[in-house]
């Protein structure tokens, strides 16, 4: 037993050697993302987007005369690890600001640590409403929670003449939240809600759920899940002869991948998205979008990843802008500065508004939401 204890100082030494020495020359931003485990693909996309932003900023001379340095840590798609990683980034690497942690449960696990060390975090992906409503003043979210998406969708439900809607959702906070918020919005509009079918993260065969939906009397299906399951759903829906209007939500769909993999099955499907890599000119910040897409392709990443990775890009730019505004790389100053930034992100203006209980509000930015339709293998923008 005493033998094993001898290892602990070795670990402490290792941490001392690997972290905390380069502090003065660079401005560090902690990145807490899932690089292994169930969400590895998405986390890697976001990190790649973040690297593009960091390289771009550094190529232009950095901020406050210093280069920015991303300290990237893998949270293993595991909430316990996500909290531990936040602890490491803040206390060992001494980062003044973080970006993370992709999934809602990962982000929620990190949040007590933010309170403990009073360090702000830019949340780039998580969609759970809880993140900005539980009273954590260190959280600044740039992705839209499903309620925001539902509100944006409200404007066009009349044009689509929806009558009865089924849901097919991923069984996690994202899918559940979407079904809840969209149902509420649609009921207010007099649209009736039919089935709410769920699928597990990682499930590959949705034929049973789709067969059930095929036999229901609704005319529209709202589908919420990640791009891989979307592809499967379109293929399986086509194989089952499901002929209903499909609308996907959540914004990490990738129509190109869907077109490539699902082919004709994708025609007629509609998608709510927050980023338009296909129409850089129609985005709020065409110059940045073009730069980002060019850089993404130059680095040999699949175009498919754009719709996720842009969040990492925007997240780092948000954090960097706040550091610049604060004038120093200190958590309190950065937190204060986050309330004052106004940058043109790839999916709209990033401006934080207050959300949650008074006195300890979290920041929530309102990104743009677009509806696109796939027709004859091409992406078309529908005006909202």
């Amino acid at each position, binding site marked *: 037993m005493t033998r094993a204890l001898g290892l602990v100082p070795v670990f402490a030494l290792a941490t001392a050697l690997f972290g905390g020495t380069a502090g003065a020359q660079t401005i560090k931003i902690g990145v807490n993302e899932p690089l*292994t*485990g*169930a*969400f*590895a*693909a*998405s*986390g*890697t*996309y976001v990190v790649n987007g973040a690297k593009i932003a960091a390289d771009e900023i550094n190529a232009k001379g950095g901020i406050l005369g210093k280069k920015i340095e991303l300290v990237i840590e893998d949270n293993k798609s595991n909430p316990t690890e996500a909290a531990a990683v936040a602890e490491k980034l803040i206390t060992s690497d001494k980062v003044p600001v973080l970006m993370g942690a992709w999934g809602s449960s990962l982000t929620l696990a990190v949040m007590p640590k933010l309170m403990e060390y009073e360090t702000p975090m830019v949340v780039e992906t998580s969609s759970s409403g809880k993140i900005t409503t539980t009273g954590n003043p260190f959280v600044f979210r740039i992705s839209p929670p499903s309620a925001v998406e539902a509100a944006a969708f409200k404007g066009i439900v009349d044009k689509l003449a929806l009558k009865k809607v089924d849901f097919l959702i991923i*069984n996690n906070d994202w899918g559940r939240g979407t079904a809840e918020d969209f149902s509420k919005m649609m009921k207010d509009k007099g649209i009736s809600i039919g089935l709410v*079918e*769920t*699928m*597990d993260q*990682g*499930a*590959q*065969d949705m*034929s*049973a*759920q789709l*067969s*059930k939906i*095929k*036999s229901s009397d609704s005319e529209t299906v709202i589908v919420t899940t990640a791009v*891989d399951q979307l*592809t*499967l759903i379109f*293929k399986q829906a*086509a*194989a*089952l*002869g499901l002929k209903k209007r499909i609308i996907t939500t959540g914004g990490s769909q990738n129509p190109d991948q869907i077109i490539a*993999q699902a*082919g*004709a*099955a994708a025609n007629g499907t509609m998608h709510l998205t927050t980023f338009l890599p296909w129409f850089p000119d129609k985005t709020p910040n065409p110059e940045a979008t073009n730069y980002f897409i060019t850089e993404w392709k130059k680095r040999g990443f*699949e175009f*498919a*990843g754009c719709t996720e990775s842009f969040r990492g890009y925007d997240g780092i730019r948000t954090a960097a802008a706040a550091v610049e505004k604060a004038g120093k790389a200190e958590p309190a100053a950065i937190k204060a500065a986050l309330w004052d930034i106004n940058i043109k992100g790839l999916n709209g203006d990033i401006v934080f508004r207050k959300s949650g209980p008074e006195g300890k509000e979290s920041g929530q930015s309102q990104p743009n939401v677009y509806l696109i339709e796939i027709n004859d293998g091409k992406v078309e923008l529908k005006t909202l």
Partner: protein
Amino acid sequence: MSEFLQHLVNMLVLGGTYALLGIGLTLIFGIMNVVNFTHGVLYTFGAYIMFIVVQQLGLNFFLALPVAVLAGWLLGATIELTLLRPLRGSDIDTTMLVMIGAWIAMQSGTLWIWGGVAKSVATPFPEAPLVLGPVSVSWLRLFVLAAAAMLILVTYLLINKTSLGRAMRATFQDHDTASLMGVNVDMIYTSTFAIGSSLAAAAGALLGPVYVIFPQMGDLAAVKAFAIVILGGLGNITGAVIGGFILALAEELGAGYVSSGYRDAMGFVIIIAVLIFRPTGLFARAERVG
């Protein structure tokens, strides 16, 4: 009614692939008494072989299947020779944990090599489904069902009609006596593991194009395979085939008429129920085997 028919058709195509997954595992579990946690990784491996052959090398889709079977055989034999053979005679916990270690390392290796982004494989089959009245089914899935049936038949003949298969069954029933008959039990173990592995890889290669291919795809598949083996009884190929169809039916009807959230729970519920009420599996012979 049409919904029910559609569920039945879904069950048929799904059950075929489940059966394929199950027979590979039931051989290993039954003959070697190894709870093989690498079964899912071998399934994933087969799918990636399909991806490499079709998408990266640009070779024929139908050629990829035998390549995957062969590659699965080789990888299985390697695992058996390097990890299991040295541990022969160790207790079941040690072997199981070594297999868990291999599973963790191999799955992470897959992630390292190919990344986490899902891959898909182009197939030569038409996109439009075959429509028969109220039910439709895709051509690709029909092909998968046929290929699975063929592989199951080949395995059945191998086990029941060849001298190797007879030696495998003898080893399963009584390994000491089998060795007195001149059976090289070590060789039988290696072949069994390799054959089981090649069937897992074949299942992955067949299902990879139906779904998408990613490093963790094998986890759920492995769990289902365990359910099928328990359902059918250890080492019982016919049982595994029937078990595969029962699991598919339970999942289809469970998701269709109970709640889709519990779809993947069906396998586990079946395992628990079978083990409580009929611990040797539904189709095992009443007397003790092995």
